[in-house]
């Protein structure tokens, strides 16, 4: 009977458990959870702030998931060292755990750039875990003034959640536009307008130079007083376990399509890894929940002796703020086609007759059709229609594809 160890208890870990169990119903699975919760849906923490969900609903799987899948979960446990030679793992308690196969799904940690006097700021929060959210929610009052550093996905989602509690929210970012990781400046302005219409205040291309008590002194000299500070600048992969054991790493743990690291019997999945974006063939950290699951699931199947590759990862995002939805996928380069309407923007990026990326803001109906075209690199020429003014649908595909998917069982 194989002994599987999964370090981490997030989306990738759950995918890994399901992957293992798909092949091996019997092997022993041990899950190490740093947080004291069963796996929950991490992106929901902003919805938790606005009471759209609660910790019970946030559970990623049924309460009986671990039991049903025969997993032992060790809560409040971190691993400190991995020895691929002896196939043992050292825990923070000092205990060791031996394994046959191990999956490192340790995720990421908030990255906070150095800011003067930051350490003395009271009511300072990160926004990555349920515990972060719980603490934040407890601290924020309707009268609280909130300063969020970072106008990326996490910062803005946090802002949206907090908006249900307080109107006084300012978001600052060093970048000159919001959501700089997924939008260009023009589209960002469109979104920013919507955010501002919902009472968020922005100070961009600007960052905190230093803190003076509960006031942030900005680089441009502005002073922003606040009661609550949230740092949401970015994250870094938790790669230590593998890197310290001599495993290959780039900006995160290097894995192949089977989610194997360079170390024998050591797999890695989720936000702690980097992989190839097929839309531009570059190696990236694609810290996205769907990717995390797929990677974990792929790792699990391979760990249990099955055969599975995950070779069509693309960066993609579906996110909405105050009712405005946007979806992005792939890269923003190549030949661009645009359709701008009063309340929507659509941008498509093509290269070599293939769709390599898109941005949809406002009208996101059936966006999965584009994702599929992108992910499966379907030549645009072979499509029966690719009219960017039209909503995508099954009619976008050629007849053969339609017949196959509508008249038979699909994967």
């Amino acid at each position, binding site marked *: 009977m194989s002994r599987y160890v999964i370090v981490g208890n997030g989306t990738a870990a759950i*995918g890994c458990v399901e992957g293992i169990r798909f092949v091996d119903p019997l092997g022993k699975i041990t899950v190490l959870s740093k947080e004291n919760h069963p796996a929950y849906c991490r992106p929901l923490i902003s919805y938790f702030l606005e009471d759209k969900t609660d910790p019970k609903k946030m559970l990623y799987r049924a309460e009986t998931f671990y039991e049903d899948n025969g997993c032992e979960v060790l809560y409040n446990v971190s691993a400190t060292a991995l020895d691929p030679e002896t196939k043992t793992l050292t825990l923070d308690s000092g205990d060791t755990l031996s394994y046959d196969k191990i999956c490192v799904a340790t995720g990421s940690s908030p990255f906070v750039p150095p800011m003067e006097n930051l350490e003395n700021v009271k009511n300072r929060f990160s926004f990555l875990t349920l515990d972060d959210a719980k603490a934040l929610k407890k601290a924020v009052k309707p009268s609280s003034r909130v300063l969020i550093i970072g106008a990326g996905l996490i910062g803005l989602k946090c802002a949206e959640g907090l908006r249900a509690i307080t109107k006084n929210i300012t978001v600052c970012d060093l970048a000159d536009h919001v959501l700089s990781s997924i939008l260009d400046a023009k589209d960002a302005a469109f979104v920013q307008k919507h955010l501002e219409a919902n009472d968020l205040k922005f100070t961009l291309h600007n960052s905190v130079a230093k803190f003076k008590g509960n006031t942030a002194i900005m680089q441009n000299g502005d002073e922003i007083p606040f009661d609550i500070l949230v740092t949401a600048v970015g994250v870094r992969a938790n790669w230590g376990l593998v890197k310290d054991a001599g495993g290959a790493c780039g900006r995160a743990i290097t894995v192949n399509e089977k989610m194997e690291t360079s170390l024998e019997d050591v797999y890695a999945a989720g936000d702690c890894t980097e992989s190839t974006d097929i839309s531009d063939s570059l190696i990236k950290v694609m810290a996205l929940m769907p990717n995390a699951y797929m990677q974990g699931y792929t790792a699990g199947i391979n760990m249990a002796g099955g055969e599975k590759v995950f070779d069509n990862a693309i960066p993609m995002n579906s996110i909405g703020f105050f009712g405005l939805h946007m979806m992005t996928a792939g890269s923003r380069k190549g030949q661009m086609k645009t359709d701008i309407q009063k309340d929507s923007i659509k941008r498509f990026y093509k290269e070599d007759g293939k769709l390599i990326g898109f941005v949809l803001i406002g009208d996101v109906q059936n966006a999965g059709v584009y*994702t599929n075209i992108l992910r499966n690199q379907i030549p645009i020429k072979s499509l029966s229609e690719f009219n960017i003014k039209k909503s*995508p649908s099954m009619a976008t595909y050629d007849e053969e594809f339609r017949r196959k998917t509508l008249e038979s069982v699909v994967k």
Partner: protein
Amino acid sequence: MKRVFVKEEWCLGCHLCEYNCAYANSGLSSMVKALQGKPIFPRIHVNGNDSVTFAVSCRHCTDPLCVKSCISGALHRENGVVCIDKNKCVGCLTCMLVCPYGALVQDETGTVTKCELCTKNSCGTPACVAGCPNNAIVFEERCEE
């Protein structure tokens, strides 16, 4: 497991499936009461172009991307049927971003709604199938290719 299959050759584009679906999932005893004067949010949609029409609803993939991508755990499989727990859905629409078929839509509540093969209502045979006048939508057991 029986699934809904669509033969575009026989789709008349009458859109009856949409209305039958919306009615079946309304929980109301009369179609008039359920649908008159309101926007409808059916779980099946007639797509098409100038020359062809066909109804699209969830394919209930054996390895569903939407379930894997769901950030809230709302999408899940029950005996092969991809179901959504509306209680858990926060309306992030990631599922819509990944579904290659456009089978999911956002309804009036802001959350996602989708075909559950009428397993959660009292129809028995899916309403779209029962109501299709030309057998363009069928409910059958077919093997995976």
